């Protein structure tokens, strides 16, 4: 038990956790800004409101004026949390508002699963001492390491790995081992691209090329399952976790190429920050 506790509460630098907070919240800002018109448009969306998850707590559609106020508050609290200003207050406010905004978007017929991992990461960062470095008033923060900065980083990695594990289990639940043995992956890719093509949006120009070598899909399906179902194991070793993170990133790059699905959080690497010594990005940290 003690060994488990020592491992979980292994000290980590304050600057590592602070850098993860800063970069993650910056990503959220850009992510929301790029999709700004879609989020703003939710204020006047005509589609039927179909609540999911925490959306069930809402009485119904949010009035447009209130929705715009929520978005403005999200921007303000996000800016404050990004710069670490009163993080213990602005962090939870930001996380709660982000949960509201991302959930609300999923309440109109399409569930944005890709937001879930980002959301869990923001909740973890909001509920720990992530604002004690790279923050207003403390600058780069202390050089020291402490368990208070270590466990949140481990939790961020655990949440990431759990998300992939759930995705792997879901594949096995739906297709069983047929996911590996038959053409499930190939048909899945074909269906997704065909729907895009027939609904008039951009689809992958590489689909036809990939289908010229159908034998490739079996090892790719195996690798996908190993990467996802085996994910929790890599939490035990930091180096192995880093190898896994690179493999997971390559997996998303492959998805982007053959399916034209761009999950920006993992694709740009932000989902895997907790696996690396990201404080070294600040070269002055030496």
């Amino acid at each position, binding site marked *: 038990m003690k060994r488990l506790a020592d491992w979980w509460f292994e000290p980590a630098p304050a600057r590592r956790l602070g850098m993860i907070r800063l970069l993650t919240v910056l990503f959220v800002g850009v992510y929301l800004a790029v999709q700004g018109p*879609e989020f703003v*448009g939710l204020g006047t*969306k*005509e*589609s039927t409101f179909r609540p999911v998850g925490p959306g069930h707590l809402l009485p119904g559609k949010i009035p447009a004026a209130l929705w715009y106020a929520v978005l403005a508050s999200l921007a303000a609290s996000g800016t404050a949390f990004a710069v670490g200003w009163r993080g213990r207050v602005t962090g939870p406010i930001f996380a709660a508002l982000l949960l509201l905004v991302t959930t609300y978007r999923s309440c*109109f*017929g*399409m569930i944005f699963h890709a937001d879930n991992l980002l959301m869990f990461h923001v909740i973890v960062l909001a509920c720990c001492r992530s604002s004690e470095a790279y923050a207003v008033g403390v600058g780069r923060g202390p050089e020291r390491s402490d368990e208070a900065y270590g466990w949140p980083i481990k939790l961020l990695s655990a949440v990431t790995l759990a998300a992939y594990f759930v995705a792997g289990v879901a594949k096995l639940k739906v297709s069983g081992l047929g996911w590996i043995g038959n*053409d499930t992956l*190939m*048909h899945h890719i*074909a*269906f997704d*691209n*065909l*729907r*895009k*093509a*027939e*609904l*008039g*949006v951009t689809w992958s120009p590489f*689909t*036809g090329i990939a*289908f010229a070598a159908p034998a490739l899909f079996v090892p790719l399906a195996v690798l996908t399952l190993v990467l996802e179902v085996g994910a929790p194991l890599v939490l035990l070793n930091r180096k192995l976790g880093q190898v896994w993170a690179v493999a997971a990133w390559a997996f998303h790059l492959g998805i982007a190429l053959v399916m034209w699905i761009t999950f920006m959080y993992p694709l740009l690497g932000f989902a895997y920050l907790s696996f690396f010594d990201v404080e070294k990005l600040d070269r002055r940290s030496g």
Partner: protein
Amino acid sequence: MSITPEGVEAPVAPKWIGEAHVTAAARKLRRAERGKRLCRRAARRLDEAGALAHATELQLRSDRYDTVAYFGGETAPLSSRVHARCWVGKKP
């Protein structure tokens, strides 16, 4: 699907049925299989925006394909069923 008087077909992008994403658009279309109203609304939006200027007709349609063969060049649907049709602008 938009159709010109000459019978040339082109897909109608999700935004014309009020959706930003293809998955949401597909779900909306499935839920509105006999969606005359959805068809008319999309036609009105296209007409007002002057988009797909040569199209005169919209069809809400289910097409079945061989998904893998599609990317080998067999892009014609195996079967087709029209659920609703409407005119873009004035009926010709």
